[in-house]
């Protein structure tokens, strides 16, 4: 049985401990997994961004190298192809031929170094126009560089002068896309439509990073190329939002600078929002038409027509520059103006200065990056593009990703260890608490929990100990109270035994008595004692105070009375004996008021003495009469002082008389307003029940007292005896 209980206890404690451990560990592990996942994703994303930036940087470097070689190649080829313009000696021709060859080799080396050795990227590159000749010019090889690149890692497509290269046909493109080695990619572009081509090619391939760079027709455009590079470095390569705003602001100026280089096909616009702007345009055009300012302004009809045309060709106050030029041409034809303005370059140069000086706002609907590619169309030999496929390229990225995964796993393992082991600190205390609770639950209130510390568990242990101490005190008090109650009950039983068990049964007389103690042990006493020889002792006494002490004094008084009453038929003498004994043997705060009378049953003469007790009452012939009493309480004075104060009185009782003796608990019974029942109400009640038996009279008095006091607790012992002589 004990084993079963102990096992049950252990199981319960384990359940508590496991519950806390599990919850703590679960919460901790969950939190760390969540945080680790977030950090991991953030780090991986950061690495991807870093890789993309690296790819762009490497791509630009590679392309720059290839483009530089392309420039050399194109320059050499241009010189070699135009013998009239560039007459060369044989040595020079060989030198250019070598340069041509070397540039091709270097281009190949760039590709091979990037693509083959370092495995940096999967590429395709796009060359336009004259560059398509590169492959066929490859010396000592039966295959063009296109095949070479195709074979190693990519594809090479050309298009130029309106001649469609069959490889550019969509079917061929698809063919190459399907058959080129894994890990490669290809692309092509018609530079007039470069943005669309790029987008179409990579619209479903978000893992490709595209880097493009323009190749120019001849060496004379190197400055333009540098201009582009500077522009790109300064504006295009910075992709942050802040820089984009900055770029947007600066780009307007750069765009203005570039107007001069653009053809009419480019969708550049200027905004003309006010009449002032329109007048400026009018001045510009009229200047080009070689009219004086005065004439311009006086030609109201011309001005009006101009504004009508401006409004016609503009949309929301936006005029495209090609349309502006068209308008200019219309005016030339209509008015047959003398000086034709047919030099396109000159027109754009002057328009450029006009726009710049007058701070008009040129802009384009195209993005800056797109413009960076297409704005050089007129001078481009082609655009070289590299496409980085991140999954294949990113060895470094994969390593970094693995590093992050390792980091997260490493942290997780440690956290799981901590999460599982750390609760041991708490669990030990909780276990101890649980054991203590079980011990206390089994009644061991001496159990103390020895847990130090100021944390919650330490405080809980302190509270536990205080609770146990209080429980123990409460239990001790309860036991003490039970013991006291038991003792009082015993005292009550003893006291009850001291009172007469039966009332006297005497012919011609009926007796009644009522006794109610306020506490378990009362201090009142009444008795009827058969003294022999036709004498009946009648006594009523009231010991000061209540409770056990009063009860003991009452018992002493009764013992003394019973010891002497049968031998001494002198009430005063009896009182003297009791007084002397009580005076010597009880505490000074205990005294006894007492009535003691001896009734001669034949003559009905009552001889009595009173020791400070209530006056006895006679009800006779419908009248109430209080008998003289007097005296002083027993146990207060010594014999010498007591004797003179006590005397013996006699009264002759008659048939029909009621004799009533009582204690002050009757007349001093209180109601809720602290009013006393009083002697008058008592006498009235007696008189009202004068024809009844002694028992009925007693009951009537008790009932009257109860109705008077109501629910107020009894505050003194109540004793009353009544006998009637029939």
């Amino acid at each position, binding site marked *: 049985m004990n084993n079963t209980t102990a096992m049950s206890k252990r199981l319960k404690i384990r359940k508590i401990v496991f519950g806390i451990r599990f919850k703590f560990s679960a919460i901790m592990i969950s939190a760390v997994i969540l945080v680790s996942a977030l950090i991991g994703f953030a780090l991986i994303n950061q690495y991807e961004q870093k890789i993309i930036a690296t790819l762009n940087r490497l791509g630009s470097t590679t392309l720059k190298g290839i483009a530089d070689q392309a420039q050399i190649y194109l320059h050499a080829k241009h010189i070699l192809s135009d013998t009239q313009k560039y007459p060369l000696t044989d040595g020079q021709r060989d030198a250019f031929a070598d340069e041509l060859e070397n540039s091709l080799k270097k281009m190949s080396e760039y590709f091979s170094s990037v693509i083959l050795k370092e495995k940096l990227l999967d590429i395709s590159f796009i060359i336009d126009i004259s560059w398509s000749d590169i492959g066929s010019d490859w010396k000592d090889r039966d295959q063009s560089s296109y095949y070479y690149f195709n074979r190693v890692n990519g594809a090479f497509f050309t298009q130029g002068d309106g001649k469609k290269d069959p490889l550019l046909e969509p079917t061929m493109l698809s063919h190459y896309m399907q058959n080129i080695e894994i890990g490669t990619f290809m692309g092509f572009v018609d530079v007039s439509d470069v943005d669309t081509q790029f987008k179409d090619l990579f619209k479903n391939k978000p893992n490709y990073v595209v880097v493009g760079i323009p190749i120019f027709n001849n060496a004379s455009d190197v400055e333009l190329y540098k201009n582009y590079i500077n522009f790109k470095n300064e504006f295009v390569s910075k992709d942050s939002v802040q820089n984009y705003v900055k770029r947007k602001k600066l780009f307007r100026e750069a765009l203005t600078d570039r107007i001069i280089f653009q053809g009419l096909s480019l969708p550049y616009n200027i905004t003309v929002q006010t009449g002032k702007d329109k007048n400026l345009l009018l001045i510009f055009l009229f200047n080009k038409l070689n009219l004086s300012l005065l004439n311009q302004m006086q030609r109201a009809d011309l001005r009006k027509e101009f504004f009508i045309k401006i409004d016609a060709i503009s949309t929301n106050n936006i005029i495209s520059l090609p349309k502006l030029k068209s308008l200019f041409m219309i005016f030339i034809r209509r008015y047959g103006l003398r000086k034709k303005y047919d030099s396109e370059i000159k027109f754009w140069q002057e328009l450029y200065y006009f726009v710049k000086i007058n701070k008009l706002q040129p802009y384009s609907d195209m993005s800056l990056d797109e413009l960076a590619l297409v704005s050089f169309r007129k001078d481009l030999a082609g655009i070289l593009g590299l496409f980085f496929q991140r999954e294949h390229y990113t060895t470094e990225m994969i390593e970094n990703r693995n590093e992050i995964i390792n980091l997260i796993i490493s942290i997780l393992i*440690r956290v799981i260890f901590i999460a599982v082991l750390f609760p041991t600190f708490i669990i030990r205390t909780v276990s101890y608490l649980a054991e203590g609770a079980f011990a206390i639950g089994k009644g061991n209130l001496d159990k103390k929990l020895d847990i130090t510390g100021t944390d919650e568990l330490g405080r809980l242990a302190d509270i536990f100990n205080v609770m146990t101490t209080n429980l123990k005190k409460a239990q001790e008090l309860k036991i003490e109270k039970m013991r006291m109650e038991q003792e009082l009950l015993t005292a009550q039983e003893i006291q009850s035994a001291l009172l007469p068990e039966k009332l006297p049964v005497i012919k011609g007389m009926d007796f009644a008595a009522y006794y109610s103690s306020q506490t378990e042990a009362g201090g009142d006493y009444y008795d009827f004692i058969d003294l022999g020889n036709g004498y009946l002792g009648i006594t009523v006494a009231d010991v000061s105070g209540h409770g056990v002490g009063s009860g003991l004094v009452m018992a002493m008084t009764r013992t003394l009375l019973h010891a002497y009453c049968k031998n001494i038929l002198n009430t005063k003498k009896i009182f003297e004996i009791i007084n002397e004994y009580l005076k010597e043997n009880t505490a000074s705060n205990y005294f006894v008021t007492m009535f003691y009378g001896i009734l001669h049953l034949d003559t009905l003469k009552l001889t009595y003495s009173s020791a400070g007790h209530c006056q006895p009452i006679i009800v006779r012939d419908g009248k109430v009469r209080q008998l003289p009493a007097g005296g002083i309480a027993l146990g207060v004075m010594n014999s010498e002082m007591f004797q003179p104060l006590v005397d013996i009185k006699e009264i002759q009782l008659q048939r029909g008389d009621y004799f009533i003796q009582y204690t002050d608990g009757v007349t001093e019974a209180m109601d809720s307003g602290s009013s006393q029942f009083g002697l008058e109400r008592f006498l009235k009640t007696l008189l009202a029940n004068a024809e009844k038996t002694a028992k009925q009279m007693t009951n009537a008095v008790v009932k009257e007292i109860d109705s008077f006091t109501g629910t107020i607790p009894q505050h003194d012992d109540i004793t009353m005896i009544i006998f009637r002589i029939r």
Partner: protein
Amino acid sequence: MKLNIKWFSVTTLIIGTIPFLILFIWCSVNGFGVELVRIFESIHPNGGLSIFNNIDESFISRLPGIIINTAYAALDSFIFGITFSSLYNLFLTKLETDESKDE
């Protein structure tokens, strides 16, 4: 005698952390114990915050690596302390139980 798990773990944490912290700082200053630090870092992923990534730069730039490595040392020694003392107490309890049964 059972071990106090908490204070034993704190003790191992201190013993395991301070020497490594000194080593990491020393290593980042003049390369002392590079091989040991490399071995340490090889089994403690740091997400790129290695001491050696910035070995040519200022000491401040190597602080993240020192902090990460020291955190690893502290955590591992603390875990070691908890594990060791928990297991020791567990086996000791079993031993005492067996002995009391024999008696």
